[in-house]
């Protein structure tokens, strides 16, 4: 009886040891060094560098997501980015934290700018040019609409304005030319 138990334990032990050795070898053989997912996540993020997620820029947030941070903390990216992140991470989409706003860009009212360079220092993408005591201006093509320059301005001369609609960025619209839909999607 006892010998049976001993045989059983011994057999399983041997089996376990063999398998353990195989696994140990393959864990060395198939070692994975870096995690490319951070780069991929960073590519999905809108790169506004606005810090609304609580991280100082998009890359740190991408890193944080890879480490298990929530994917719903990027209001500039909106629902679309969140869904991409969810798909990429293989997790369920969540409701966005904070609300999605229409795309805005910064605009400096010239007559009130005193040339303090505060906004220049605040801009994460160097989209404001100007010099001390010279009027500053926003390069509209480069502005990401992060609004980080609004608060530092001592004279409150920076407004966030919607992007001007031209024939170039105009889009066909289902509402403009309504399509009737019997299933009321």
């Amino acid at each position: 009886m006892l010998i049976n138990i001993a045989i059983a334990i011994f057999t399983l032990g041997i089996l376990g040891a063999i398998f353990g050795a195989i696994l140990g070898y393959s864990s060395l053989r198939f070692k994975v060094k870096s995690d490319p997912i951070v780069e991929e996540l960073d590519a999905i993020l809108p790169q506004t560098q606005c810090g609304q997620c609580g991280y100082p820029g998009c890359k740190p947030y991408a890193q944080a997501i890879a480490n298990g941070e929530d994917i719903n903390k990027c209001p500039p990216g909106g629902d679309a980015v969140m869904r991409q992140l969810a798909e990429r991470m293989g997790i369920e989409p969540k409701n966005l934290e904070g609300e999605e706003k229409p795309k805005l860009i910064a605009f400096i009212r010239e007559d009130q700018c005193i040339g303090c360079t505060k906004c220049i220092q605040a801009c994460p993408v160097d989209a404001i040019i100007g010099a001390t005591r010279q009027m500053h201006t926003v390069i509209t093509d480069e502005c990401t609409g992060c609004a980080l320059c609004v608060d530092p301005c001592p004279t409150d001369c920076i407004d966030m304005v919607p992007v001007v609609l031209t024939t170039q960025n105009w889009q066909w619209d289902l509402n403009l030319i309504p399509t009737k839909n019997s299933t009321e999607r």
Partner: protein
Amino acid sequence: MSDYVLLFFGTVLVNNFVLVKFLGLCPFMGVSNKVETAVGMSFATTFVLTLTAALSYIVNTYLLMPLDLIYLQTLSFILVIAVVVQFTEMVMHKTSPTLYRLLGIFLPLITTNCAILGLALLNITENHDFVESIIYGFSAGIGFSLVLVLFSSIRERLASSDVPLPFKGASIAMITAGLMSLAFMGFTGLIK
């Protein structure tokens, strides 16, 4: 030879593990959202099934039977399965990190996939020899892959259809699986 062919088609179509035997439903529901992941899961599961079939046969025939340790079958098979799955996981992490992440928890969960243990035990109850065991394992994997890939391509289409809210997601997938199972009933009696 024709026996093997019959065994293969019988296992893929007539006694399909998922739709007829209802084994391995967890990954069938879990990773069928996208064809890409389904294909990855199919490969992983087929690989695990085949390897497990071979290993469990060896363990059973050359270790447990001679030592009269049949009562340890379940225990040692689970050990075999766990090792194979771990191994697969490592290989996959190395070769395809994207797929590794997409499969997520379902990859280690292959361990607890009843299809695998079911296969090991069925191999013994059906008295399959070594080659038969491997063919059985492989064809079970192919059968699983077939329906998983078809199911996932259906679900991709379902994702953008106007399903009533209470039936969105898993519930319509269940209904679809049921209908697929109905269709597979047509193969009954094909191979006796």
